[in-house]
């Protein structure tokens, strides 16, 4: 309905004021992508290094403990992250630059939420790969770091990509946490300290009270989200095949 009645209004309208007939969704699309890629940028190194630590640089006992802890960590509901962000993180950012609810806050919270997914899936990939190759490389006299940087990681590109895609899906679909810490202003941000609204937060904020065209517009934004994830999955499938372990 929103599509047929308003055509391309969801791209070209001035802004998002559904009750005044303006349906521009681009700022929210940009917001979703920014916060997602930002958090991936932070979570990837965090995930890779923590999985390397668990797999190669600690005793088996600590490894088990570490792994259990991360597993537990992935089970924390997102609303808890959101509440923690709103009560602790946002006031700190607010002191640096008001209002505190910002792209930065969302990025940090999301990074914290998704890095364990990356870490967990990489720990198991490392285990599988190292079963054969680690001993061989040791017997060849290679240093551990040489093995990791020149053999393991280059050959596990596909797995790292897979883990990234998995966490991308989690991050872009995340609703409650970003709704609480991002400020929800529909505008393309010009700095990390400005608030944003994501597509998911938009649906959660407005669906309960939306009627008529407003409601259809929200469904359209859901479709937009779905197709974005679809495109990304196809892309990752393609890339995964290219990077597959060639041993």
């Amino acid at each position: 309905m929103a599509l047929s009645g308003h055509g391309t209004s969801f791209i070209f309208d001035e802004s998002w004021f559904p009750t005044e007939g303006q349906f521009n969704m681009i700022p929210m699309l940009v917001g979703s992508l920014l916060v997602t890629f930002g958090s991936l940028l932070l979570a990837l190194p965090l995930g890779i290094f923590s999985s390397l630590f668990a797999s190669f640089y600690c005793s088996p006992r600590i490894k088990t403990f570490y792994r259990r802890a991360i597993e537990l960590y992935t089970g924390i509901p997102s609303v808890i992250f959101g509440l923690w962000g709103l009560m602790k993180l946002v006031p700190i950012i607010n002191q640096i630059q008001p209002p505190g609810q910002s792209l930065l806050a969302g990025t940090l919270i999301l990074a914290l939420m998704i890095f364990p997914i990356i870490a967990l899936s990489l720990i198991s990939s490392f285990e599988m790969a190292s079963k054969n190759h680690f001993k061989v490389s040791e017997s060849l006299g290679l240093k551990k770091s040489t093995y990791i940087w020149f053999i393991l990681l280059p050959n596990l590109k596909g797995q790292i990509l897979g883990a990234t895609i998995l966490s991308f899906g989690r991050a872009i679909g995340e609703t409650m946490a970003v709704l609480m810490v991002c400020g929800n202003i529909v505008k393309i941000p010009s700095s990390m300290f400005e608030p944003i609204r994501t597509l998911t937060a938009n649906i959660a904020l407005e669906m309960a009270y939306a009627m008529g065209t407003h409601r259809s517009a929200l469904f359209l934004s859901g479709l937009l989200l779905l197709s974005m994830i679809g495109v990304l999955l196809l892309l990752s499938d393609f890339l995964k095949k290219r990077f597959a372990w060639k041993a």
Partner: protein
Amino acid sequence: MRFLAVILLFLGFATYADEKIVITGSSTMAPVISDLAKLYESKNSDSRIDVQTGGSSRGILDARKGLAQIGLVSRALKENEGDLRHFTLAKDGLAIIIHNLNPIKELTEDQIKNIYIKNVTNWKLVGGKDKEIVVVNKAEGRSTLELFLKFFKLKNSEIKPDIIIGDNEQGIKTVSKNPNAIAYVSIGAAEYNASVGVPLKLLRFKGAEAKVQNVKNGTYPLMRELNLVTKGNPKGLADKFIKYVLSEEARQTIKDHYFVPINAK
């Protein structure tokens, strides 16, 4: 065969016993009326209540034309609407809230308006500390937003918010953690949170304390009535449903939607 006949007979009775009414009107009231209708239907399985929205004027129009048995009107009735019977379900009030540490006690209508359209961006200009004002607005479609816009004669696109929130709780959490924020939320939610020690302050408005009590007795101006209207005296299911929504039983549901039930103590 006999079994089938029994089922058919039963179905026949079921359709015969079904009574259906249509309720249309204010989108502010539709969610709470929908909830109440669902509760009513679950207790009286032979009733069907269809709730549609379209604004208060549609509620009036449909009730007049007989297209709907009950109309929902989220304002006091005008003089030329005296041909309809009205039943006041509840009142909807909003409180302007700021952090406890903010020294301001009262703002005028103009000051609030200027803060929300960012003509005034520093608390200093309205008698507070030298701090940037953080403006908190509600998401589209919320009834408190609608009431706020109507009262201050603003369009949502004129407001320049720093933060947009969804429900009242989120607004209260935001303000309680930000000494420079200003927000408006349903009065019931604000009063409850302030009473349990959340560091927020309800601003006086036009000389009246922001209190549920003052919404009830009508001295606090930032509020409106939520009315059910019927053409003539309600009959049948419409009558029963109106009695139900005005009863003790419905009160909690109304409160859950942060409205102030009219018959509450």
